[in-house]
């Protein structure tokens, strides 16, 4: 018997990427219907992902921008409230917890009350824990709250938990509720509870120190303004008087930003004008005259719209102490509109952000997305399996002609990847347009003002990548099955 010869496969050609690609491309071109179907499955999943993600990104960006605008618009009010309104135990705790990372604010608290800065910092940190626990209890469902802490609210929660038996029950009841995560570990909670008395005492002593100072400031300011109301006084004050007021604040260690003081007067003037005109519009006499002049009975919103026309100047000025020009009234109307839209957005966005609780995707959205991905993968895998059964003779023939297993595998994977890219790009574009339309519908032009370009590009890339990964993952098994097909299948006759 002759010794068998060994064949040398070293010179077997490695197919170039380009060659495989051109084979795959012509395959897709001539099976356009099936490819389109597979592509649309990917398209839908990617579009859904892109809509959800970019909508959230846009809303977050708008929320941030609007929050900034609101802060600027109302900064003067915030300053005055801070200086002249006495907080209570709850609101001082909120204020302190908000100030925990604001060095300047903490310094002001320390300087005004004469407390040590370190002690104020400590107090602020504890307030933060307290607030986070309030939030924790507020966010849970009523049933859970009742079971854990009964009907207690506010500081009473802590008093309730200080009782050893109650705390034991609390721990026992919390155990099975795995979705509820304490803001701190239990040891820290226990320490906080043990510390309650001292914390409460130091908080109220801080409060009374702060309130005493505010009372003092109030008294001194009244002397300065000769018992006039501060808002009104600020409107007509001259530079010397303003300087005197600033000095008074500085003497008592209150720190107000220079920028805020600069805007204070114009803000107050704007506020006064707005209040005066809206109050005038609400008065029955003006309403009567308005009705006689324009022969319509209008609600306040319509009247504010009409403020922009020149023929109302005379009527309005009859009922206001200060006299306004046409430009003034137009400005007031714009200001009212702007404030209204801001407030509406604020409440809208508040709702949105409380639903999302900080992260980009809420739990429900993540769940829906994962389901859609699974459905998409099953769809693609099914379509690919169908494509392979349909082409089994072609695959077997290719193997007869010398195609290796890996060539068949790569061919089918590449086909899926191309469909993934096409579906991904289209889905990305469609998803983006839908998200933009949706947010424009709810927030007007704000999405364009605060257009989160970089974040959206990241979203687009992520969704494209997901499209490709989904397609390739789903085609893994079908491609493998195709590559393992025996070449003799080609001989079979249907």
């Amino acid at each position, binding site marked *: *018997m*002759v010794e*068998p*010869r*060994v*064949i040398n*496969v070293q*010179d*077997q*050609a*490695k*197919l170039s990427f380009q*060659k495989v690609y051109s084979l795959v491309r*012509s*395959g897709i*071109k*001539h*099976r356009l219907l099936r490819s389109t179907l597979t592509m649309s499955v990917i398209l839908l999943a990617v579009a859904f992902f892109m809509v959800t993600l970019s909508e959230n990104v846009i809303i977050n960006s708008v929320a941030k921008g609007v929050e900034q605008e609101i802060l600027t618009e109302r900064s003067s009010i915030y300053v005055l409230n801070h200086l002249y309104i006495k907080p209570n135990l709850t609101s001082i705790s909120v204020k302190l917890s908000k100030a925990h990372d604001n060095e300047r604010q903490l310094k002001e608290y320390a300087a005004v009350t004469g407390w040590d800065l370190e002690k104020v910092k400590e107090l602020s940190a504890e307030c933060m824990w307290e607030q986070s626990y309030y939030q924790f209890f507020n966010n849970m469902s009523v049933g859970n709250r009742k079971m854990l802490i009964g009907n207690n609210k506010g500081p009473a929660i802590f008093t309730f938990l200080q009782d050893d038996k109650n705390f034991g029950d609390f721990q026992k009841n919390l155990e099975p509720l795995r979705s509820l995560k304490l803001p701190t570990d239990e040891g820290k909670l226990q320490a906080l509870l043990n510390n309650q008395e001292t914390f409460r005492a130091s908080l109220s002593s801080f409060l009374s120190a702060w309130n005493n100072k505010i009372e003092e400031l109030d008294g001194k300011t009244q002397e300065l303004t000769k018992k006039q109301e501060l808002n009104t006084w600020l409107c007509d004050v001259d530079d010397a008087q303003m300087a005197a007021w600033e000095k008074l604040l500085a003497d008592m260690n209150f720190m107000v930003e220079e920028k805020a003081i600069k805007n204070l007067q114009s803000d107050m003037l704007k506020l006064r004008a707005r209040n005066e005109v809206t109050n005038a519009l609400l008065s029955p006499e003006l309403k009567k005259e308005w009705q006689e002049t324009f022969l319509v009975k209008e609600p306040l919103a319509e009247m504010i719209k009409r403020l922009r026309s020149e023929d109302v100047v005379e009527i309005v000025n009859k009922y206001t102490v200060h006299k306004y020009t046409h430009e003034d009234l137009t400005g007031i109307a714009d200001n009212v509109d702007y404030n209204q839209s801001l407030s509406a957005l604020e409440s809208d966005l508040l709702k949105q952000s409380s639903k999302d609780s900080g992260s980009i995707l809420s739990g429900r959205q993540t769940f829906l997305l994962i389901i859609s991905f699974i459905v998409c993968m099953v769809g693609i895998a099914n379509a690919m399996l169908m494509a392979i059964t349909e082409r089994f*003779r*072609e695959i*077997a*023939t*290719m*193997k*007869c*002609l*010398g*195609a*290796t*297993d890996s*060539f068949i595998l790569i061919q089918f994977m590449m086909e899926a990847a191309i469909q993934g890219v096409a579906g991904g790009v289209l889905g990305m574009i469609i998803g983006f347009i839908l998200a933009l339309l949706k947010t424009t519908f709810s927030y007007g032009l704000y999405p364009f003002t605060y257009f989160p370009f970089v974040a959206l590009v990241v979203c687009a890339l992520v969704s494209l990548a997901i499209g490709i990964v989904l397609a390739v993952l789903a085609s893994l098994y079908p491609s493998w099955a195709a590559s393992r097909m*025996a*070449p*003799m299948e*080609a*001989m079979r*006759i249907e």
Partner: protein
Amino acid sequence: MTFDAEAYSKGKEVLVRAHDVKKTYQRGEEITHALKGISLEIYRKEYICVMGPSGSGKSTFFNMVGGLDSPTSGRVFIDEVDMAQLNAHELAFLRCRKIGYVFQSYNLNTVMTALDNVTLPMIFAGVHPDDARQRGMQLLEKVGLGERWFHRPKEMSGGQQQRVAIARSLANNPSLLLCDEPTANLDFKTGKEVHQLLYDLNKVDGVTIICATHDHNMLEVSDRMIWIADGNIDRIEISSEVELERSSLGEHEEF
């Protein structure tokens, strides 16, 4: 009719050697012996017809010789290469360069043009695309379809498709051409054309052809006929010797 192997093989070069080839299929408890020990030598430039009723093991034998399947026991050598020793990659290499396949239902890639179909095996073999196109055109001209290289299978008749398939099978200059009932789907006239083509390839170009067929036209042109029945070689006939016999008796009509 006896076959004198020694006398026949004199001065001929062995291309395919099957030695005690057995193949069993197991489906659950049931074991089927498709081949029960076939030993055979096929020589270079020979034209062989394999005949046998369905279920005789003809297809299994065909697959063994074509490198599509490996035997349960025994050995198959093609060009002195032992098929049983090869892994999947080496088998693919062998199928690509040593063996050409012609199928009953043509099995052309429906989305490719005739030329693309013919050049596909050359692409697998790593031939430069320009050379592949040139050779592809030559082959298409040889089978008489030089004018129709840009047509897709849908636009061609069965006979034309089969001729494209034959051109494709010759792409890498195989030592062996395996034809599985190449004329079964064709009418008498086109079937005859395909025969003529295969005959010319064998006689003029010296291609070794193994052909499974029921077609009597095919038997006439073959050198040897191998009759397989019940997993064994029933008999081997040299066609020049049986021609007279058959014309008078017509005894093989049942096949």
